[in-house]
C-alpha cells in the first residue's frame, strides 16, 4: 500500500478543501509535514485513520466538522465534511472517501447525520473505474484494522511497548499480526466441533446393519429349509398316495372284498365333491360377508332418509325439474299436463328455455339420487342377508353330509380291517397306517405354512429395516469422516502451533534486535534484545542480565520504535509508516540515529513533526529521501489551518 494523496474538506481545523501529496518514489519516499503544536498534525493523523476505518475511536463525530464552516452557513443549512484518500496497492489505484454531513442548529452547534457516506472505488490502468463491493473487507485485507496501530503510529504512545507492564500489549500485537490468535481460535473451535461429532457418533447405533443382515440371512435360511421340507413332505405324501392307490387296486382285485372297496371308492369321490362344495360355499360366504357392512347401520340410513325428505318437503331443496324429464317431454312433444304441443310453439320454446335456465342444481340432483338409492338399501340388505342365510344353511348341510360320509368310510375301513382274509386285513391295516401318516404330514405342512408365512413377513420387514439401516450407516460413515477430518485438523494446528509461535517470536526478536542496534548508540553496552516466552520485550546487558530497568526514557522509546518497526517489516503488510511526532521525547543523539535509519526501514514514510523535532542533523539525514514537504499554518484571523508547501 502506498499513499498518493489526501484531500480534506471541512475536517476539524482544515476549513474548505485542502490537499496534500505523499512522496512515493523509490528514493524520495519521505513526506515531512511541519506543524507547531495545535496546528493540526494530530488532526491530519486522525483524518487518515477516520477515512480508512471510520468513527470507532472517535467520541463525537460532530466535533470533526469544521467549526469555521458551520459558522459561515445559516441555521438549518448543511455542511459536508469529508476525507478522501487515494492509494496504490498491488498495481491498482484505490480511492476511498468518507463523508459526514452536518446541519447547523439554532444554538450554533451542529447536528451530524447518523451515518457516514463511505465509498471506495478501484481504478484500472486504462482509466476505467468500478466501485468496490465490500469496501470494509477490502481495506481490512490490505491493512487490517487491528494491525494499523503499527503503521499509523502515534508518537505519544511510543513508550507503551517497552514498559514492563506492556507484556500483554506486546503479546497481543504478536498474536494479531502473526495470526496466532487466528490459529488458537481455529484450534479451539475445531476441538469443540470434534467433541460434538464424537458425542453424536456415540449416540448412533453402530453394528445395527450387521445385526439386521445376520437376522435376515438366518430368516432366509430358515425359510428355505421350511420350503424344502414342505416339498419333501409333499413328495412323500404323493408317494404314500400311490402306495395307498396300489393297495386299493389290490383290494379291488380280491373277489370277496371288491364290492366294499368299490363302495369306498364311490364314497370317497362323493366326499371329495362335498368338500369342494363346502370350500366354494365358504368362499361365497366370505365374499358376501365382507360386503355386508351396509346391512349394519339401519338406523342411520333411516335417519338420513328422514332428513332428506324433511328438507324436500319444506321446499328447501330447489324443486327443479330434472333435465331428463324435460328432454323426455320434448321428445314426446308433450306437455306436462299431457297435451301435445307444436314444434316451435310457445310451449316448446318454454320447455327449451327451462333446460337453458333452470338446469338442475347439482345438489338437487344429488338429493333425489341418494334418496332413491338409500331407499333401496333396505331391500338389498334383506336379500343379502337371505343369501348368506341360505349359504350358511347349505354349509351346515354339507358339513352334515361330510360327517356322514366320513362315518361311512370309517365303517368300511373297519369292515376291511376286520376281514377274516389275512391279506385283506393286512392290506387295510397298512392303508390306514399310511393315511394316518399322511395326516401327520399334513399337520406338519400346516405348521410349516404358518412358519413360512411368518418368515416371509419378517423378511419383508427386515429388508425394509436394512434399507433404513444402510442409510443410517451412510450417515454414520459421513459423521466418522467429519470427526476424523476435524480432529486431524485440530491436532495438526496444535502440533505446528508451538513451533510456529516460537519461530515468529524468534523472528521478532531478531528483527527488533537488528533495528534496535541500528537505532541505539550505546551499542556496546547492550548485548541482546529478548522477547521471552511471555512476550516480554527486554534488553540484556553484557552480563546477561535484563537491562531494561536501566534504560532511559529515550532508550525505552527507541526499543518500542524498534519493535514496532520490526513488526511492520516482518508482517510485510507493505504499508506506509506514518508517524505523529515520533521524536518528541527522544534525545538528539537518538534522533540523529533514527532519522538516519528510518528511511531504510520502510517503503514510504510520512512524518508529522514539530520544528524542534527536526534540527539540522536530523534534517540532513532525511534530506536525500524527502520528496514532499508541507507546513501547517494556523491563521489566527480566520481560525483555521492551511496546508502550505514548504
Amino acid at each position, binding site marked *: 500500500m502506498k499513499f498518493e494523496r489526501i484531500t480534506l474538506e471541512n475536517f476539524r481545523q482544515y476549513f474548505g478543501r485542502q490537499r496534500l501529496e505523499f512522496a512515493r518514489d523509490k528514493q524520495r519516499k519521505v513526506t515531512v509535514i511541519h506543524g507547531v503544536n495545535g496546528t493540526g498534525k494530530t488532526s491530519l493523523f486522525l483524518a487518515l485513520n477516520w477515512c480508512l476505518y471510520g468513527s470507532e475511536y472517535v467520541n463525537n463525530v460532530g466535533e470533526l466538522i469544521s467549526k469555521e464552516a458551520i459558522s459561515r452557513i445559516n441555521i438549518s443549512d448543511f455542511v459536508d465534511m469529508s476525507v478522501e484518500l487515494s492509494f496504490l496497492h498491488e498495481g491498482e489505484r484505490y480511492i476511498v472517501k468518507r463523508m459526514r454531513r452536518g446541519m447547523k442548529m439554532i444554538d450554533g452547534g451542529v447536528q451530524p447525520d447518523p451515518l457516514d457516506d463511505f465509498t471506495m472505488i478501484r481504478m484500472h490502468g486504462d482509466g476505467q473505474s468500478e466501485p468496490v463491493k465490500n469496501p470494509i473487507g477490502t481495506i481490512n485485507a490490505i491493512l*487490517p484494522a*487491528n494491525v494499523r496501530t503499527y503503521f499509523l503510529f502515534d508518537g505519544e504512545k511510543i513508550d507503551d511497548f517497552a514498559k514492563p507492564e506492556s507484556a500483554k500489549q506486546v503479546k497481543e500485537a504478536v498474536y494479531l499480526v502473526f495470526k496466532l*490468535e*487466528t490459529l488458537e481460535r*481455529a484450534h479451539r*473451535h475445531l476441538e469443540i466441533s470434534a467433541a460434538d461429532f464424537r458425542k453424536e457418533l456415540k449416540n448412533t447405533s453402530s453394528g445395527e446393519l450387521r445385526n439386521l443382515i445376520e437376522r435376515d440371512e438366518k430368516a432366509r435360511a430358515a425359510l428355505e429349509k421350511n420350503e424344502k421340507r414342505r416339498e419333501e413332505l409333499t413328495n412323500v405324501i404323493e408317494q404314500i398316495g400311490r402306495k395307498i392307490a396300489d393297495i386299493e387296486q389290490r383290494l379291488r382285485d380280491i373277489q370277496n372284498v371288491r364290492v366294499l372297496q368299490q363302495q369306498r371308492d364311490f364314497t370317497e369321490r362323493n366326499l371329495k365333491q362335498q368338500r369342494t362344495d363346502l370350500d366354494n360355499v365358504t368362499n361365497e360366504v366370505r365374499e358376501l360377508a365382507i360386503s355386508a357392512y351396509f346391512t349394519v347401520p339401519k338406523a342411520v340410513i333411516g335417519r338420513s332418509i328422514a332428513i332428506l325428505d324433511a328438507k324436500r318437503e319444506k321446499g328447501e331443496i330447489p324443486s327443479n325439474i330434472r333435465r331428463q324429464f324435460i328432454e323426455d317431454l320434448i321428445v314426446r312433444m308433450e306437455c306436462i299436463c299431457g297435451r301435445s304441443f307444436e314444434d316451435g310453439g310457445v310451449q316448446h320454446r318454454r320447455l327449451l328455455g327451462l333446460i337453458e335456465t333452470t338446469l338442475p342444481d347439482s345438489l338437487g340432483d344429488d338429493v333425489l339420487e341418494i334418496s332413491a338409492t338409500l331407499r333401496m338399501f333396505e331391500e338389498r340388505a334383506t336379500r343379502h342377508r337371505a343369501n348368506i342365510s341360505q349359504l350358511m344353511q347349505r354349509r351346515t348341510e354339507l358339513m352334515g353330509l361330510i360327517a356322514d360320509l366320513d362315518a361311512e368310510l370309517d365303517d368300511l375301513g373297519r369292515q376291511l380291517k376286520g376281514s377274516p382274509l389275512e391279506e385283506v386285513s393286512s392290506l387295510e391295516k397298512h392303508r390306514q397306517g399310511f393315511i394316518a401318516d399322511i395326516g401327520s404330514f399334513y399337520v406338519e405342512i400346516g405348521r410349516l405354512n404358518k412358519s413360512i408365512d411368518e418368515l416371509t413377513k419378517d423378511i419383508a420387514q427386515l429388508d425394509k429395516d436394512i434399507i433404513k439401516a444402510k442409510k443410517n450407516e451412510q450417515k454414520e460413515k459421513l459423521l466418522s469422516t*467429519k470427526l476424523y*477430518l476435524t480432529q486431524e*485438523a485440530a491436532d495438526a494446528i496444535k502440533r505446528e502451533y508451538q513451533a510456529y509461535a516460537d519461530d515468529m517470536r524468534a523472528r521478532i526478536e531478531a528483527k527488533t534486535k537488528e533495528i534496535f542496534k541500528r537505532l541505539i548508540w550505546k551499542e556496546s553496552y547492550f548485548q541482546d534484545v529478548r522477547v521471552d516466552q511471555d512476550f516480554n520485550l527486554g534488553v540484556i546487558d553484557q552480563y546477561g542480565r535484563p537491562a531494561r530497568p536501566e534504560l532511559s526514557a529515550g532508550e525505552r522509546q527507541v526499543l518500542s520504535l524498534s519493535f514496532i518497526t520490526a513488526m511492520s517489516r516482518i508482517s510485510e503488510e507493505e504499508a506506509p509508516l506514518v508517524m505523529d511526532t515520533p521524536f518528541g521525547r527522544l534525545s538528539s543523539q537518538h534522533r540523529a540515529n533514527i532519522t538516519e535509519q528510518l528511511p531504510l526501514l520502510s517503503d514510504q514514510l510520512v512524518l508529522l513533526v514539530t520544528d524542534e523535532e527536526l534540527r539540522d542533523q536530523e534534517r540532513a539525514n532525511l534530506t536525500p529521501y524527502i520528496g514532499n514537504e508541507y507546513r501547517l499554518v494556523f491563521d489566527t484571523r480566520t481560525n483555521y489551518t492551511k496546508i502550505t508547501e514548504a
Partner: protein
Amino acid sequence: MINERLSQLFTKYDPVIQTLISEVLTLEQAYISMERPHVKEQIDQIISRLAVKEQEHIDKSEEGNRRLI
C-alpha cells in the same frame, strides 16, 4: 509472508486437511476483530462439505478394492 508461512506449516498433511485448515483460518481471520464471533455453523458447513467429498472419494476407492477381490 505470514500467510505463506502459515500455509507452508501444513504441507506435510493430507490435502483435504490442509484445505480444511486453510478455510477455517480464513474464516477466523475475517472475524478476528470480534471478541466472541459465532462461527460454529460456518465451520460445520465447511467440515460437512469437505467430508462429503472425502466420503465419495473413500467410497470410490472401496468399490475399486472390492472389484479387485
